[in-house]
């Protein structure tokens, strides 16, 4: 019974969303678009700021703040006031 029900769903699906023609092809040559994408990416990576360095600096700053807060806990409310 379950197999029959599953086959019915499959049939309904194939009627609603017919299988794609295996001979379907892109309407245009996609190579220029791939090349454009590669070029755009190389320009972006050349002009982007160094994420590693920025990341390292952020972490160092955060670590410094944590150490400072542990060393001088009384300054925390003052910091929060000025935030």
């Amino acid at each position: 019974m379950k197999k029959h029900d599953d086959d019915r769903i499959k049939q309904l699906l194939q009627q609603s969303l017919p299988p794609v023609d295996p001979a379907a092809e892109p309407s245009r040559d996609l190579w220029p678009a791939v090349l454009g994408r590669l070029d755009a990416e190389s320009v972006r990576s050349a002009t982007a700021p160094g994420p590693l360095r920025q990341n390292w600096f952020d972490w160092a700053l955060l670590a410094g703040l944590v150490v400072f807060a542990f060393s001088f806990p009384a300054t925390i409310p003052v910091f929060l006031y000025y935030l």
Partner: protein
Amino acid sequence: MPARSEIERSDSVPEPSDSVLVRFRRGDLDAFESLFRLHQRSVYGWILRIVRDPAAAEDLTVETFWRIHRAHDRFESARPFEPWARRIATRAALDWLRARRPESELTDQDVADLPSKSAADPGIAAEIRLKTAQAFARLPPNLRIAAVLSLIEEQPHREVAAALGISVGAVKLRVSRAIRLLRKDLLKQGITP
């Protein structure tokens, strides 16, 4: 209608020579273009089966080959290229399905516009076909991919599993869950499958 084995034969692409694969792995753009020319049609066809939108399939083919180029140094040149490309294409298509709103503006025209192997059965009302297509579009993307490839496109479970990077058992489970959810959704709309 051609037999499934004929379709599979017409889909298969001859593997490129080892030297092209080795040169591609080193980042050679000419070798990449050779691979692109050889596999463009099959990658496009695979993506079209999943996303069922020719314009989106073209964009995703470009996205797939861009990802392939980006990952060239991770490619193992001793392995066949096509399954690797198909896996990347499947992931790109899955990302697209996840980013898209479920059943967004799916109309009967969208369904009719798709280049298909056979015409719809006039015995099944257009409204039922549209509601089924919309219910299908509401399935979670990972279930939808497994179901579209296994049930509609009748791809072997082994190939679907390889493309999704999961086991054959997991593919069967996803297909079974997709059928269950679909039946529930159709019943809620008053359609008894």
